[in-house]
């Protein structure tokens, strides 16, 4: 085997040497191809594994941590939630509609492969500035693709987040999260158990599409990426819907010994991972794989990433029953091989053995790297930026309206009105709130979800930024009254072999790990997406956190909008935020700099606990966390959602700039509404927590009025005017 071949497949010389050592001979082309996809970053996590090990993964609520297709969390009453997030960045950069659509398809399969009924989708998106036609094309295509796939399979897309920044111009991020519910006692496994059992492939036919998709995901984007044709595929959500129903039926009837979706690295990944996890092996007959095109080679069949396929391991006595289910759903079904006990993958084609290697070689024995890291030079420089250089706006009202009109703050309705967030009639809070809230039929419980990440913060300080991603996600579900239970994540970074990128990665994960420990929200799984670069320019380091929260009693859910005129408005947490890394600083002054204060993790945990208790005892009427845009933005958002104005009077602490007071950002800050009847109970409760709080004013009228103590108002605007600045920003950018 020539050296050029392994290099062309993305394997290094050392990796090739390791392969020779493991195999004890030269691999043939098929075997080498299998190594190349399984040892790609996307499948092997070779560059991230060491670092990820520091994330906490255990807790009483965790039924299954990382390692399978999705993690599983106990929610009581015999029920559990499977959830996971995944990226589809590179395909979406090239074919936004199909790239995003197949991203949804992939994450949904990860959930139902666990035996869970998918109940919710979320998405986290990053694009360049919207005034570029190419960005508009990507943005519109991605949103339409997520809508097209999710709506068709009937899973509501209930939330997400969207950011625009030049850092993502050439390399947009498309992260999708799915959650499903299953009986805690009936977790399906991606394991090839029971030698002699039959291996069944079901769903779409295998085509030549998507060859080496994982390798594509493990490189940077450049001008030639457009030519990476086969790496982009067309999704078939109709097929997925049939697969979903049929697989869940087979799992419910306990006819399935093991099941796994075919994603990146296709059959190679599914056969080797299922075998490796169970310590078994497989004999596979490629002639029995239904193909879309004739004359497909063993290499193509084993590496194809055609969508909408599932691999099942079934005991022989159950085959007929499984076949009946698939036939009823109109799905093609083929027994392609057998489970063995020898740990080997043996691949046959036209009666000949065309490949043989231990499943562990591809999985367990994949190399793991500890890469060098180095603090980037920008880090200290931006940290020590002198905020005094930033002029204070003359007209705070104008500044406020301008901030609301920043696409990062503005309403995201243009996006989510394209998503069916109501299907399945369980959506108690759809997009537009802090967290999405869903009921669980047959119980009093509710689930809350949020996806959050702020690449700008992480760029300025990966450690604090990593923490903040977790804190914000947890705060969002806590604001809805839910207890944060666990997270999934998607870690989007540049090329990890560059020490400065690896440094960002390491520190971000460290921050996330500490926050997860402090909040008691372990990591159940996730996804790492490296090589998010265009022509050598990396994106902001962007870890995105997907949080799961539990409401024991759905009727105690809290929403962000003011409920009633005369309700009191309280702020929990610090009065003033910081300008460091704030949207205000960037959108109005074009500055990205500063040193964010180190978040107080203990305080965050208290705050979330307080919010849960306040919701359960109904002493608050609304809650909305402060995030991008700071205090004034949060006040406005609560007003838009509730349809009431507010009148606020703020103290002016010394050494705090007015813009810092109004627009500064910080952690563990929440606005709550309190009815006059419950004010005493609220005060009793909040006093029992070690949290700063203060009364800001009351819900009133149809204006947003903010003054410093008794002075003339700084802000005195009709709600209508404020809302107009915020509402149609995204549609206007696209016209």
């Amino acid at each position, binding site marked *: 085997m020539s050296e050029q071949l392994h290099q062309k497949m993305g394997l290094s010389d050392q990796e090739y040497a390791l392969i020779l050592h493991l195999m004890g001979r030269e691999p043939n082309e098929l075997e080498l191809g299998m190594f190349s996809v399984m040892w790609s970053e996307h499948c092997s996590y070779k560059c991230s594994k060491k670092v990820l090990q520091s994330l906490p993964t255990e807790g009483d609520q965790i039924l299954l941590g990382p390692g399978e297709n999705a993690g599983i969390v106990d929610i009581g009453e015999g029920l559990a939630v499977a959830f996971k997030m995944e990226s589809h960045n590179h395909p979406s950069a090239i074919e936004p509609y199909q790239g995003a659509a197949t991203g949804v398809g992939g994450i949904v399969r990860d959930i139902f492969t666990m035996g869970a009924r998918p109940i919710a989708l979320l998405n986290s998106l990053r694009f360049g500035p919207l005034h570029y036609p190419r960005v508009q094309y990507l943005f519109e295509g991605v949103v339409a693709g997520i809508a097209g796939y999710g*709506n068709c399979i*009937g899973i509501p897309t209930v939330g997400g987040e969207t950011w625009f920044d030049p850092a993502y111009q050439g390399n947009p991020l498309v992260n999708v999260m799915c959650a499903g519910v299953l009986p805690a006692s009936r977790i399906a496994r991606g394991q090839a158990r029971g030698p002699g059992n039959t291996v069944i492939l079901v769903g779409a036919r295998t085509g030549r599409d998507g060859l080496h998709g994982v390798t594509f995901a493990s490189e940077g984007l450049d001008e030639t990426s457009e030519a990476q044709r086969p790496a982009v595929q067309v999704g078939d959500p109709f097929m997925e819907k049939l697969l979903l129903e049929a697989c869940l039926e087979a799992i419910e009837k306990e006819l399935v010994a093991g099941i796994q979706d075919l994603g990146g690295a296709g059959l190679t990944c599914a056969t080797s991972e299922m075998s490796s996890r169970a310590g078994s092996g497989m004999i596979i007959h490629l002639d029995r794989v239904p193909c879309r095109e004739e004359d497909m080679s063993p290499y193509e069949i084993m590496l194809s990433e055609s969508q909408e396929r599932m691999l099942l391991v079934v005991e022989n006595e159950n085959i007929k029953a499984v076949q009946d289910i698939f036939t009823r759903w109109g799905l093609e079904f083929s027994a392609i091989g057998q489970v063995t006990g020898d740990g080997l993958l043996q691949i046959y084609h036209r009666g000949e053995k065309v490949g043989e290697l231990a499943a562990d070689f591809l999985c367990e024995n994949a190399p793991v790297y500890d890469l060098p890291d180095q603090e980037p030079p920008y880090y200290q420089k931006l940290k020590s930026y002198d905020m005094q250089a930033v002029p204070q706006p003359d007209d705070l009202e104008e500044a406020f309206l301008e901030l609301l009109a920043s696409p990062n703050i503005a309403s995201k309705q243009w996006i989510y009105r394209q998503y069916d967030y109501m299907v399945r009639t369980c959506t108690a809070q759809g997009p537009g709130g802090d967290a999405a809230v869903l009921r669980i039929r047959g119980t009093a419980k509710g689930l809350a979800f949020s996806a959050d990440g702020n690449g700008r913060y992480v760029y300025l300080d990966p450690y604090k930024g990593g923490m903040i991603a977790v804190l914000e996600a947890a705060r969002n579900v806590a604001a809805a009254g839910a207890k944060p239970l666990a997270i999934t994540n998607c870690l989007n970074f540049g090329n990890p072999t560059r020490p400065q990128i690896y440094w960002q990665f390491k520190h971000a994960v460290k921050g996330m790990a500490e926050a997860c420990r402090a909040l008691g929200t372990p990591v159940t799984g996730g996804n790492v997406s490296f090589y998010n670069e265009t022509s050598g320019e990396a994106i902001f380091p962007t870890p995105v956190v997907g949080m799961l929260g539990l409401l024991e009693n759905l009727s105690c859910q809290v929403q962000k909008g003011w409920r009633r005129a005369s309700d009191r408005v309280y702020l929990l947490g610090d009065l003033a935020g910081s300008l460091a890394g704030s949207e205000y600083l960037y959108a109005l002054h074009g500055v990205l700099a500063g040193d964010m204060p180190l978040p107080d993790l203990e305080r965050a945990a208290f705050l979330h606990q307080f919010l849960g208790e306040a919701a359960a005892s109904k002493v608050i009427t609304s809650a909305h966390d402060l995030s991008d845009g700071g205090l004034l933005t949060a006040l406005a958002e609560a007003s838009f959602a509730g349809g009431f104005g507010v009148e606020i009077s703020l103290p002016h602490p010394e050494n705090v700039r007015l813009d810092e007071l109004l627009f500064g950002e910080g952690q563990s800050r929440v606005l709550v509404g309190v009815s006059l009847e419950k004010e005493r109970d609220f005060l009793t409760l909040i006093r029992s927590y070690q949290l700063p709080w203060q009364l800001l004013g009351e819900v009133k009228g149809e204006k947003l009025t903010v003054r410093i103590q008794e002075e003339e108002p700084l802000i005195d605007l009709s709600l209508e005017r404020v809302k107009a600045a915020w509402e149609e920003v995204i549609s206007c950018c696209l016209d």
Partner: protein
Amino acid sequence: MKFGVIVFPGSNCDLDAFYMVKDVLNKPVEYLWHHEKTLRGSDCVILPGGFTYGDYLRPGAIASFSPIMTAVHAFAARGGLVLGICNGFQVLLESGLLPGALYRNIHLQFRCAWTHLSVENPHLPFTAHIPSGQVLKIPVAHGDGNYFCDPETLETLKKNNQIVFRYVTPEGNLDSRANPNGSLEAIAGICNARGNVLGMMPHPERAGESLLGSRDGQFIFQSILKHWGESS
């Protein structure tokens, strides 16, 4: 009275219609598989929303040839109550049970939103017990809800009172901004001449509980029950 909810490949609001009847109305309901030849004694059959056959070719086109549609045709001809919601409406149009066609929303986007409906014909089994003048708050979620028919058909629809719902403002006024898809004359739902087959784009089964944001969808289901001489 018993309801039947047809399950076509790709239906995805079958469950919502099912639970509307079972949990909200507390009435018997069962799923009917698209291959079946009878409606199993259903007194009202619902063609639910979703993406039958992925909306491939045209929404509702392929499903309209399902074996069960023969039974639906016969049932409708006998005066049986047929309610097509969203994709179910599209199936009814494609199968010729209702006139006209639904095509791409004028703005080319899928639209999930709350809409308000005026009741244009309050004399149907589906509408007779909606309080007079009530504007219904019911959501839509579709990409192809733009109703079209030729001028003669429109005349006939008007003459026979076949336009059942129109998109209006919350106050009940016609306004192009209240029309979520560009539908001809803001048409949101129509019925056949006899008044026993109703197709509508908005989802009454998604508006059955205050938890979901509205209970106005109940008016339609209550009308059906009362027409049948039942109370809930």
